[in-house]
């Protein structure tokens, strides 16, 4: 079973967290930090599997992660999941995000938390893999997005802002994107330690 799916950037700032097992909010934050510390100090040329992560479940627990540009995608799973299977599932997830957001970047995850969660919900349900076919997932998401189009309004503004930001060719921007500087209404947050 998948216990948690975490996405954070190179500085450990969480960009998405979804827990399929109950942890208190404090523990959740600690898990994110612990996972970041475990994952971030690993070289690029070592394997994508990690054991440990004491908070999330000890020895039975595995962390399977992939590092894409500025983001770490980490799946915390128990021993009943196949490592390589999950590794490819992350790939499917990222490819799906890429398809849905058209060249996905870190900002998409910030401004469309709900969308990302919806995509994830189509793939993983209650901790079990539901769908692994990217086209199928995209079809479902598109069907839902049709609803959204009928509801124009508030959602339109941030979307335009994002597309403007995207045109700035974001990947070239240094990794540390200070959200507060971009004048969009997003909480200005303290640095993550």
């Amino acid at each position, binding site marked *: 079973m998948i216990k948690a799916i975490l996405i954070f950037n190179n500085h450990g700032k969480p960009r998405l967290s979804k827990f399929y097992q109950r942890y208190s909010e404090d523990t959740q934050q600690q898990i994110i930090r612990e996972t970041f510390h475990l994952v971030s100090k690993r070289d690029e040329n070592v*394997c994508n599997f990690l054991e440990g992560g004491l908070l999330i479940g000890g020895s039975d627990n595995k962390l399977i992660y992939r590092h894409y540009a500025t983001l770490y995608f980490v799946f915390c799973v128990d021993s009943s999941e196949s490592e390589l299977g999950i590794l490819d599932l992350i790939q499917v997830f990222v490819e799906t995000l890429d398809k849905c957001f058209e060249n996905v970047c870190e900002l998409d995850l910030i401004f469309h938390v709900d969308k990302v969660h919806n995509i994830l919900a189509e793939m993983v349900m209650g901790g079990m893999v539901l769908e692994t076919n990217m086209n199928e997932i995209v079809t479902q998401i598109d069907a839902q997005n049709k609803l959204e189009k009928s509801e124009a309004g508030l959602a339109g503004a941030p979307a335009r802002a994002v597309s403007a930001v995207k045109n700035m060719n974001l990947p070239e921007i240094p990794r540390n994107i200070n959200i507060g500087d971009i004048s969009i209404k997003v909480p200005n*947050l303290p640095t993550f330690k």
Partner: protein
Amino acid sequence: MSDVVERTLSALPGLLGQHEPGAGPGGAGGPGRVSASSRLGSLIRSITALTSKHRLMKECMVRLIYCEMLGYESSFGYIHAIKLAQQGNLLEKRVGYLAVSLFLHENHELLLLLVNTVVKDLQSTNLVEVCMALTVVSQIFPREMIPAVLPLIEDKLQHSKEIIRRKAVQALYKFYLIAPNQVQHIHDKFRKALCDRDAGVMAASLHIYLQMIKENSSGYKDLTGSFVTILKQVVGGKLSADFNYHSVPAPWLQIQLLRILGLLGKDDPRTSELMYDVLDESLRRAEINHNITYAILFECVQTIYTIYPKSELLEKAAKCIGKFVLSPKINLKYLGLKVLTYVIQQDPNLALQHQMTIIECLDHPDPIIKRETMNAVFSVGGDVVHSDIPNNFLRLLAEGFDDEKEDHQLRMYAVQSYLALLEEEDKLYPQKFLQVMSWVVGEYFSLVTDVEPEVILTKLHNLLKKTFVTSETKAWIMAAVTKIASHTSCSKTVDELIQELSSSLDTCLRQYAFELKHLCEDKALMKSLLPFDASCSDLVVDASLSFLDGFVAEGLGHGAAPYKPHHQRQEEKLSQEKALNFEPYGLSFASSVSSSGVTGRQSPTGLSFGSDISGNSAETGHKETNTLKLEGVRKLWGKEGYLPKKENKIGKENEQQTVPCESLLAGQVGEPPALQPDQGASLSEEDKEKQQLASTLFIGLGSSAGVSLMGKADTATQKFKRKSKINETQQLNEEALDFQNSAASDFGPLLDTVPINVEDSEGSIHTRLRKVSPCSSDIVEDNLAFETPQSLRKSVLDDRISANRLSQSSLFADSNIEIFQPSPSAQCESASETALVPSLPEELEELPHSEVVRLCQSDALALYLCKVWTDDSLLLIAFVSNETTSALHAVNLVFEETEHVQILESATLQFPVIEAQSVEHCQKCVKMNKVCTKAILPGSVSYQSEMETHLEFSVTLSLMDFIRPMEMTTEDFGKLWLSLSNDVKQNIKMSSCQDSFPAALDALQQKLKLHRVDVIGNEGILACQLLPSVPCLLHCRTHSGMLALWFRSPSAALPDGLLYQCQKVMEESSEQ
């Protein structure tokens, strides 16, 4: 809820605008957290102000989700999330549901408010609403409310849309997890889902089945057939291409199915029978080089090793494991090690095959790989495993690698994992493993800071109470307890333990308890005795116990009786006839009187002070301290083979006891320095080191010796090189002396080896001895002295040397193969018989060849045949002699091809005409296709004289005709040995006349055309090849009248064939 909001709001004004840079988003305190962001404050305000306006609420909720993720307190918005889910339009509802599933947990009180909404949405006609409801149900749902929605979800199993059915199945899975009793009645619906026409629904139902089978596999055996059929269809590509991922059909589905099959087939031959075919098929199909196929392969291998074994599949699976382990991709390597850990229990030989990789991985920069490797090493066998493996492992751990930090981590991991293992009460572990555990825990417990020493002590204490723990293991545990106790101020468990064991019936444990008690009274002494992490530092031991002189003098001054050695006392006692006669109870005497001696022997330190037994109680007290001091060293836990150098040191202390052992060691150590130079150059230092590690680590896997010939000896060398102590030369000298001693005491074998080498002035052993030490010249002299009575042997040797000279150009030169030299008398004989003696052409005459034999004859024609053994082929020389006075026409010689042997080029031969009274000859090269001990090559010869005549004949070819010696160095041998997989082992009884190992070796070498690669002590390695180039390696050694032969070859049949020949040779030579 509202009071939370109010409190937060009231706290805001004073805090707005303040930034606390140090406070992380997950910081502990409530107010500090909120103060970190003024924007959160405005968000709160807007949310509370917006309660009636949903439009903006959705946007706020998304932000709240983000804030919650960052760790900010957002409980004030939970109720709004529920409201949004209840009242909003479709889009808002979705956000509401999402927020609820992220904010709340199953037991949250607010969740009850959602139940009604969920029920309503489940009944909705809008697919999206139903989907959302099902999603939230499968994420969080209060257990007590399941009955409210269960019938609705059951209905959804019949829904026309597959996505709905699938989600319904997932929701039911969730219910099964949290309340299995409530879904008991719908098990047959699960079966229906399994047979659903949509593969996605079926895949979802597999989750449930995997879970149920995990809990109770016997209840679902009847479904095995269905699972197998499904897998067969998936593997066979029956699913639509939509399910393909990188052109692999539904890989995740396959993985799931393989897991289920593994669970079902475990320990069940009948069920396993059903899956063999499909597993084979899966293995075969998974060929494309993509991650996901490896995922399937991995599951396949795991399943194959889980279910009832089938050798054919195991073989294939083992090959797959090789693919993983040897893969340059680090992920696959990791998985390979993982599966190796799992598999090694059943097939330790696999570890042997991959030992080089395992050793390399121990050095791997990735700590995860290192850990996994450690597990692989550990899981090797239970008590059956050779004691060297745990010993070597501990050495690796203690000596560490280059990186201090990584060592630290590795040790910490070891301690942690062992403590976790000890956590499980009542679990039986192999004794060796327990010993390793207690050593590691005792040595490195302080690295783990989060566990109290007291807790560890309790665990060890519990372990001591277990009945299955042997007394040897208990000694290890006690040593660990002592070590831990030295680092804690005072411990209740230790006191308890001392109390308990002081009255133990086990003298050894009692002894430990007393030692511990005394030491606990003097902490300072204890600390100095048991320094932390000193397991690798060398210890200077005052073997003469000179520090006790003062004490002894004082004792004597007070009128104590002078010390008498043990045997003297015993003799005195016996002569007095007052004492008990200990004779029949020799063993129990030792253990009861000299508890210190026994402790030493059994303690992990491997030290023995048996000779220091004394009746004087005061003195015993001191001896105790003495033993303990040594114990602080901790590095001598290995009993045999480990750290030979250090053992030698101890050997010096109690020479009387360890003489046999030491001389054995010396025997091994004496030779390597000479071996080193000829190995040297080709292999880099590092590789060599690894190889040595590999062989030492796995000595004794599978069989008792094997690689030890190279391994042990080299380790010894390694030790010398690494430590490069000043006294090295001195020690070498000593060893050489020991070697001499052992030679003197046991000159049987020496006589057989040495004279040959002495005779041959360039003899290798001779020079070796010279190299070992200057004083070894004495040995040579001794050996020369021994040589004289062996004149008979010498003459044999002379013969052999002359034979060598005869055919020096040949490969056979060094291996002294008997070469047939047709004797003049034989020639005369044949001459008298027939006028036409075929003789070999000159160029072949010089090569080793067999006698010319007549195969068939008619009144007109005779066919002779001679085998010529060249270095790279077997030549058959056929002579056709015309015995008539007229010419023979159209002589046709045809060899038939059999499955075993084959004539190269064409198998027929035509002589248009053979003149009267003349001999024609031809040569054919023969190749062995299939190994067999004896092959018959049939053929026929036909000729035209007055009428067509047809003669049948057959040539018998032995396996030995195709065997050639193979020249190689010891090092190459070692490499090749490890790479070969087929091995055959056999013990052959040696008769009395060939009891010496060299004699047996000679016999094998000569008769079987083997190349003698190296001989050390009573072990030898030989190599040969089956033409054209199939190598076969032989490792042989003698022990107690048996000759243990161990063959390895890439060909499966070759070792068997050679073994048969060996047996024949040994039988023959014993008959002589």
